[in-house]
């Protein structure tokens, strides 16, 4: 009797082999980047098959690693190719005027309720959507500073757990809030980086 886990694993391995086989012939750099995104998905499926709470706690770091490496590498690509010019705003559709406000607000509020990394990602989606549609001049360094302090807060929360476990409640709140702030700040800058010049 072969269990579901094994079947799943075989399928996912086949998927991994398939994705990497696409790398064999690929010479275009952007295609490679998209394929790297695809491989992330196949890799996460292996973790997902474990099906415990711990597996879930492992998926989230996996996701973070994937998105952050993607971010860094794509930026290197743009620098290398010297693609600095800003896309011109030739084109809009009506919903891009009306939707971002409400959708962004809903996603951000929901993200704040969720808190932690999950909430950060959800809220960041909302923020990016807003920035993308509206175009925004942003105070880049301010947001960066906020996120750096949030990171420090989270480290403090970690040590609260490890050194003074009796303050666990304080630690949970600090960690959840700090990661939320950090992720939202960082990710929403993607939207700002895409849009108009913030000189």
């Amino acid at each position, binding site marked *: 009797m072969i269990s579901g886990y094994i079947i799943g694993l075989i399928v996912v391995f086949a998927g991994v082999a398939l994705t990497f086989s696409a790398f064999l012939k690929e010479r275009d750099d952007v295609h490679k980047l998209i394929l790297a995104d695809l491989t992330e998905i196949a890799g996460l499926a292996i973790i997902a098959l474990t099906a415990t709470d711990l597996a879930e706690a492992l998926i989230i770091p996996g996701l973070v690693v994937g998105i952050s490496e993607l971010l*860094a590498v794509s930026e290197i690509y743009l620098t290398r190719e010297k693609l600095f010019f800003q896309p011109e705003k030739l084109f809009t559709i009506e919903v891009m005027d009306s939707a971002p406000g409400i959708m962004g607000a809903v996603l951000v509020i929901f993200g704040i309720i969720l808190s932690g990394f999950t909430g950060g990602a959800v809220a960041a989606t909302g923020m990016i959507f807003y920035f993308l549609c509206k175009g925004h001049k942003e105070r880049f360094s301010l947001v960066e500073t906020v996120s750096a302090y949030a990171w420090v807060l989270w480290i403090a929360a970690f040590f609260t757990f490890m050194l003074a476990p009796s303050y666990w409640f304080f630690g949970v709140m600090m960690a959840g809030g700090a990661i939320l702030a950090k992720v939202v700040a960082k990710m929403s800058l993607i939207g700002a980086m895409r849009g108009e010049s913030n000189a």
Partner: protein
Amino acid sequence: MASAGVAGEPFFALPFGDIVNYFTPYTAVLFGFALLFTLICILSRPEQQLDVVFGTDAYYAKGVTGKELRFRRFMSIACGCATMAAMVSGDVFNFTLFVSMVGVCIIGIVAAVKSRHVLDAAYNYGIIAIVATIPLFGGAAITLATTGTLSIWELSAMASGMPLIAKMLIIVGVMGEGIAPFYAAKAELFRAPGAPYVIMIHVSSLLMFLRVVEILLTV
């Protein structure tokens, strides 16, 4: 407890919840080495690379200055910290996470260089670093599913231990982040100026490899 045959008895353990970092003579040596090079990165000023202009007698000095210097120093310190943490980590998944962090930091160390050649190498290396996380995490996940634990201590005490396929996946992952047949990108990365920082690239991946050998022999 870790088997004495591979890396000596652990003599100090630093618990962070479920993740217990431990020092054996072997990991302590590697940790010390990483620490040493991190200190060099912090304290040392970069060299001024002299370049000969081909076909003439002229040469010019390429310095690393200002913002770029600070950024690259920060990146190499981060890289050193990640390496140190990976050296003493007693948990398979935590180890793989720090390995990926080293991968990101390595990209960062050379990202600030303006030479297109170096950036090209960094980009290709970056793609490998992204896709190498799949075998890494996959190996850790299969270990978890088939043994029910991620702690290296527990795994080494187990009779069955880590399945072969998980070991292979992890080693392929570390190969991707580190060295092995993929030396071409590393060699190109090394052409960037800023000796103490550039050396960190290789320090970290070598140490990573030394550590993964120990892990795979232990579990």
